[in-house]
């Protein structure tokens, strides 16, 4: 059974601080995706990483896929209140399968 554990589960920081969210598994995934979900909405895709060791940057967000394709991290620089939300990693396996992580709820305080 695939299990994607995210840490921390909850994170509350001041505006301008940096943070890192981790997504770990004992399973190998063909891809790793990160989503952000705001209240009353469905998750929205932020990024997909597919190659072990891959690093992608999206403005203030930096995503890394572990060399063994079992883990990933999301780093946010100079967090803003608009970054508040539920962050979900999701591992892809097979042709159309996606397994979601346990989630990290981020609150950025102005």
């Amino acid at each position, binding site marked *: 059974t695939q299990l994607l554990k995210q840490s921390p589960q909850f994170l509350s920081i001041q505006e301008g601080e940096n943070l890192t969210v981790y997504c770990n598994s004992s399973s190998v995934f063909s891809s790793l995706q990160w989503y952000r979900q705001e209240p009353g909405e*469905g998750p929205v895709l932020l990024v997909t990483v597919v190659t072990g060791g891959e690093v992608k940057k999206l403005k203030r967000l930096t995503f890394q896929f572990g060399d063994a394709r079992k883990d990933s991290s999301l780093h946010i620089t100079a967090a803003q209140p608009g970054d508040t939300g539920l962050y979900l990693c999701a591992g892809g396996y097979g042709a*159309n399968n996606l397994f*979601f992580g346990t989630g990290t709820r981020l609150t950025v305080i102005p």
Partner: protein
Amino acid sequence: SAVISQKPSRDICQRGTSLTIQCQVDSQVTMMFWYRQQPGQSLTLIATANQGSEATYESGFVIDKFPISRPNLTFSTLTVSNMSPEDSSIYLCSVGTGGNYGYTFGSGTRLTVV
């Protein structure tokens, strides 16, 4: 990417009744997925719906409780049958073109069973 219209956005239902959730996609898609998200939790896949065939259910979910229809390539429904308070959750539909390319989600249906 596809745009999904999901309704109702929320409902409060009496135990023992059923609710049908609809998802309309603005383009033809082969596979549609139905997820459940319990309060404060992550997403759990209920079933995968292909047009023209029976839906494939994940462990812990059965067709009698969550019947799914997929009459064409742009539409699907999920029914939550004989509801109990434990069924109170957010239900989400999604579409995707493969595990490597990400999925698009509807805005969800927040169901409360009283």
